[in-house]
């Protein structure tokens, strides 16, 4: 029997009277690496913001482990989120950023917090940078630090918004390896927003493709299979980096 962790039911999202996606439904199973695909402006990141409860949908609902994330009160979060820019708190050092959820939601003593923070920073390859401010870090380092912060409370689910966007190929590949490692070794469920084809092919186990024109899901399944076998020209044009006219 499938162990569904996230259930998105008939979700319509948008802002200022503009509907980005209408009546979208899908499920994410526990232990999956689930990729939200689609061209720019189709509402991938907005969909993720709804899934983590930062926005209220026009209609429909999102349930994570049976709970509506938008109705969550203050307290330890049941999932971690990495934003596209990293969104590290600029007034805090890297150590303080990663330690913040531990200080807020656990009663761990300071030396235990330090041990966990240092371990998480080592895990994402940022050992020796704990005292640095976010402004002193490169884009890739900020994203890694944001992943460390998102994982520090050992959540079972993590959301990553464009983890490889704007990174050089080597750093992007290292991030992919890190995500795969977390999924394999810790059983972490990962929801990734991306349009990086190489990254999708490397890490994605399941995906859905959102379409800007039809405001709906136009493909779902294993991204490698979709890339090879989809008959939909919109899907083919995306995976093969072709103009839509050529794919038709």
């Amino acid at each position, binding site marked *: 029997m499938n162990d569904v962790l996230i259930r998105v039911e008939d979700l319509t999202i948008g802002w200022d009277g503009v509907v980005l996606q209408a009546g979208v439904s899908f499920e994410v199973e526990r232990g999956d690496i689930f990729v939200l695909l689609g061209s720019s402006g189709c509402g991938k990141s907005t969909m993720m913001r709804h899934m983590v409860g930062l926005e209220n949908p026009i209609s429909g609902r999102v349930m994570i482990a049976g709970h509506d994330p938008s109705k969550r009160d203050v307290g330890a979060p049941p999932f971690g989120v990495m934003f596209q820019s990293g969104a590290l708190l*600029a007034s805090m050092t890297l150590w303080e950023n990663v330690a913040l959820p531990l200080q807020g939601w656990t009663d761990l003593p300071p030396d235990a917090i330090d041990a966990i923070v240092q371990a998480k920073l080592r895990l994402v390859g940022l050992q020796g940078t704990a005292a640095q401010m976010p402004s002193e870090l490169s884009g890739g380092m900020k994203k890694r630090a944001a992943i460390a912060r998102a994982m520090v409370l050992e959540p079972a689910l993590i959301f990553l918004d464009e983890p490889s966007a704007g990174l050089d190929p080597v750093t992007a590949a290292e991030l992919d390896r890190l995500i795969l490692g977390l999924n394999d070794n810790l059983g972490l469920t990962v929801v990734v927003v991306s349009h990086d084809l190489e990254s999708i092919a490397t890490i994605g186990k399941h995906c859905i493709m959102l379409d800007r024109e039809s405001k709906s899901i136009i493909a779902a399944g294993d991204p490698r299979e979709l890339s090879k076998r989809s008959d939909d020209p919109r899907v083919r044009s995306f995976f093969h980096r072709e103009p839509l006219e050529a794919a038709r």
Partner: protein
Amino acid sequence: MRAGDPARSLAAFRRTLGAPRFELEPARDAEGRGRLMLRGRLAFSHAAALWRELRKHSMGVQRGQTFDLDMAGVESIDGGAMALLTHLRAELQQRGVGCELVHAADSVQQLVHMYSGDVAVGRRKRRRPIGTLDQLGRATMGIVHEVQLVLAFLGQVTVAGLAVVRAPGTANWRELTPTMERVGADATPIVVLINFLVGLVTALQSAPQLERFGASIFLADLIGLATVRELGPLMTAIIVCGRSGAAFAAELGSMKVNEEIDALRTMGFAPLRFLVLPRALALMAVMPLLTLIADAMGMLGGFTIATLTLDITPIGYLNETQKAVGLDDVMQGLVKSSMFGLAIALISCQQGLATTGGAEGVGRRTTAAVVTTLFSLILIDAAATIFFRGLGYE
């Protein structure tokens, strides 16, 4: 030629381009349809001349007529020139004139396609100018929306405050002391200087008037009461508004546009408890202390002028001040200053958290925070003064 003179530089640049190497000739085909024959090399470097010619030839064409752009004689064309031709085609089609780019060589046709010169032109959406009444309506709705946001924010802060009273551990107390230091201790030098000068100037302006009536000693009464009841709290609030209020709005605005607020929310922290309450409490606590310093410095300014320029002894001035200024006068000022502190923190934080639209939005909200706060300070001051008068404080 003067280096950097843009007009001369442009003229020199134009000379290097040489004369335009294109020709436009109106013609009619066998069926009487109008067309414009384009010949030669159409380049961006001669775009101005090309546009003038195109406009001249297309000006008299009427709805229902045809005016094709015949590209058969075009040897070469670049993107800038093609942009002008496709724009003219679209404009003429929207006016009801038949216009196509025809007989282009293969290489030119590719550029026509790239610039969408061969796709159907959509109907032009007419932009209606916004009328005065419409503008007034929009502005009113904008103000109503802002008021709604402010009221909602005040409600949320109240709820957050009550929640912190019930569960004190959920507030971000670590932020309190550094914020008090930033808005209080760091502001002390400027509070000292400004209030001393305000007391000094007020005394300088008042002393000759009082001296004329032989009432010089009452300078101590005037400066003492004006400082502790009005000038001390108000001047301190204005300084703190410009210093800390603007900083709060800019700081929270930057955090909002950089998704830091969203990150806090996803980590389970409520921005109001984490960011707003510590700032509000810090300002409410620090403002009375700064005001006490301001009061002392304002009276010192008056004392300096009285003892240096008037025939008043230091002891006489201090005695008169002690007689005139009571504890209730000082308390009035301190209560006001605490209210000012709360207003500065809440308005600045509300404006910061309402920021949208990147760096420009941060600037706009910071300005709005300072202006709104200054306006509110005067309103609160007036209301509090009337209230204290109503309670019987003269």
